[in-house]
């Protein structure tokens, strides 16, 4: 049986609940159509009560760490992330918190999904660069492989609680905002803002610092790319030559679109 849910986390937990109740074996859990037409499909309608039962099961029997692990695995870009996670949670009914040590392909896959998303989150807490816009907003663009914007934004919301923050995931066209203590997520397409003169000066200082700390006797570009993979360079000030930047205009940050939905990360 294939379970198809809306993109939400509660929708996913509902699918976990329903597939656990069912007598039929679980083939996969997905948030998209287009799987094999020969297999039976269940369209899952998000049910907060059923989702709550799964949350409660995780919290009381598996612990807060497991909840975090599930949240991260959910953000992974691995096509089988939902299936792995659902199967692991099913197995957890028998093994409890020790399920993560069971030698099972779904559990190993689940752990990989978690690890990838968690690692990339950690990576982007370092590899995100903000620019200060004319109105004082700190704005950053990232292009992560996994859907790590929510935990990345949560990190910065803790770090800069007094700032107005906007982090844009240009791969998914998602904008996360922190404004007056409220964190929201918006589906929009953003243009890159033009940097102010001050902003350009700080970028230049940063590039100067970065250049002068490199030990030229010990170049090791392979190691550099291993930690700072090429796909992140586009948005890194220090990995770009001084660009011929357009004339700085004063640009304030305005979001005309929807009010967005509140997001809570852990």
């Amino acid at each position, binding site marked *: 049986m294939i379970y198809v849910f809306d993109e939400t986390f509660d929708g996913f937990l509902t699918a976990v609940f329903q597939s656990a109740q069912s007598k039929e074996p679980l083939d996969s859990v997905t948030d998209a159509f287009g799987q094999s037409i020969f297999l039976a499909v269940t369209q899952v309608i998000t049910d907060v009560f059923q989702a709550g039962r799964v949350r409660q099961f995780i919290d009381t029997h598996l612990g807060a760490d497991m909840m975090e692990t599930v949240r991260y695995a959910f953000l992974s870009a691995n096509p089988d992330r939902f299936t792995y996670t659902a199967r692991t949670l099913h197995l957890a009914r028998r093994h409890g918190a020790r399920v993560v040590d069971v030698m099972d392909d779904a559990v190993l896959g689940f752990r990989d999904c978690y690890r990838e998303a968690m690692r990339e989150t950690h990576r982007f807490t370092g590899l995100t660069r903000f620019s200060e816009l004319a109105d004082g907003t700190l704005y950053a663009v990232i292009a992560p492989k996994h859907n790590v914007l929510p935990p990345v934004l949560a990190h910065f919301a803790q770090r800069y609680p007094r700032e107005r923050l906007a982090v844009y995931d240009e791969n998914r066209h998602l904008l996360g905002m922190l404004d007056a203590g409220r964190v929201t997520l918006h589906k929009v397409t953003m243009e890159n803002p033009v940097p102010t003169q001050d902003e350009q000066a700080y970028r230049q200082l940063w590039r100067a610092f970065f250049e*002068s700390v490199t030990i030229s006797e010990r170049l090791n570009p392979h190691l550099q790319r291993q930690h700072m993979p090429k796909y992140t360079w586009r948005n890194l000030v220090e990995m770009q030559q001084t660009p011929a930047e357009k004339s700085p205009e004063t640009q304030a940050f305005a979001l005309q679109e929807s009010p967005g939905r509140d997001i809570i990360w852990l």
Partner: protein
Amino acid sequence: MELEEKLRILAGAAKYDVSCSSSGSNRPNTGGTGNAAVSGICHAWTADGRCVSLLKVLYTNLCSFDCSYCFCRRSNDVPRASFSPDELARLTMAFYRRNYIEGLFLSSAVAVNPDRTMERLIRVAEILRFREGFQGYIHMKAIPGADLALVTRLGFLVDRMSINMEFSTHRQLHLLAPDKQAGQIRGAMLSVRDTINEFSNLPAVRRNDTRFVPAGQSTQMIVGAGDDTDSDILSSAQNMYREMRMKRVFYSAYIPVNLPHPLAVASPVPLRREHRIYQADWLIRFYGFEAGELLTPGANLDLAVDPKAAWAVQHHDQFPVNVNRAPYEMLLRVPGIGVKSAKRIVASRRMGRLTYDSLAKIGVVMKRASHFLTAEGTRATPVIDQPERLYRLLTDGTAQTHQQLSFFDGVP
């Protein structure tokens, strides 16, 4: 002088300093700007592959001391620059808000005298903490010879403090850094250790508003500028961890920056030597090894194999170990098994017997480990009683480099 030029000079002068680590502090945000993350965050990697986490600069490179291994020493004719406390604090904030950095790592040459320099460093930290409300990570180096009262004042402002010991023996320090006194360096370390201890015993409520060097102290040794051996270096490092309760000891392979000095070694130190020392340091801190187990007095580490493999080859009679029965401590001694995989083995074997296949899935590096362990099922041809063959199998890097490097070091 333009800020950019100053930054280039003072960052360039600090770059050989090795500590990139920003971890170990937990300074939650309480309304200001920033916080310090326990696990440490790297923000960029230079083309030489090192992590950039902190704005690492000297406050000034004007020095009244004359250490033979140092580029900034008094007798060198090099461009000099100094920040002002205000300028440096603003730069730190601008970089921090843009998430270029995790915090500030400030060191300094000894301008005028140690106390004057320490006062400047304290001023920078005060502006950051009190005027800018900065709650991010600050690591500063205490200036050798500065008044202990100043060292303590600085300790209340920073997350980590380090005092460089430079060499593992007093004799080397005396020869190569004649203006520094081993007794003063030791005295400052002891004082920081005791104050940290005093504050960590406070009840939790009071600990939150008064922090003294919450990420602990660290120190640094230069490898290969003098004639101290790896065994000297590792035993004093072990002592630093145990007696001084250091969080980290950093090692820096010497790069000759000055004209030949009659007392200093003139050749650069192979980076691999530094690397091996870091591996051994790791074994002492997390794998339950003693410095004396890894090296006999006066010896250097083998550059061709890592110190854990070298130990295992020497003690091949203690292998193979049975992964389904061996105690955790012994699992840790198997080449190819790290702390994480040792823990997972202990957790997983409760659920069933472990096979060779499952070990690879757990993350054990079977290419190395398979020679040293037994598990459920078939086993590869044992080579455990052929130490020479075992040694060759564990060599990383080519035999040629080994000879070149060991020639440098005089390894027998």
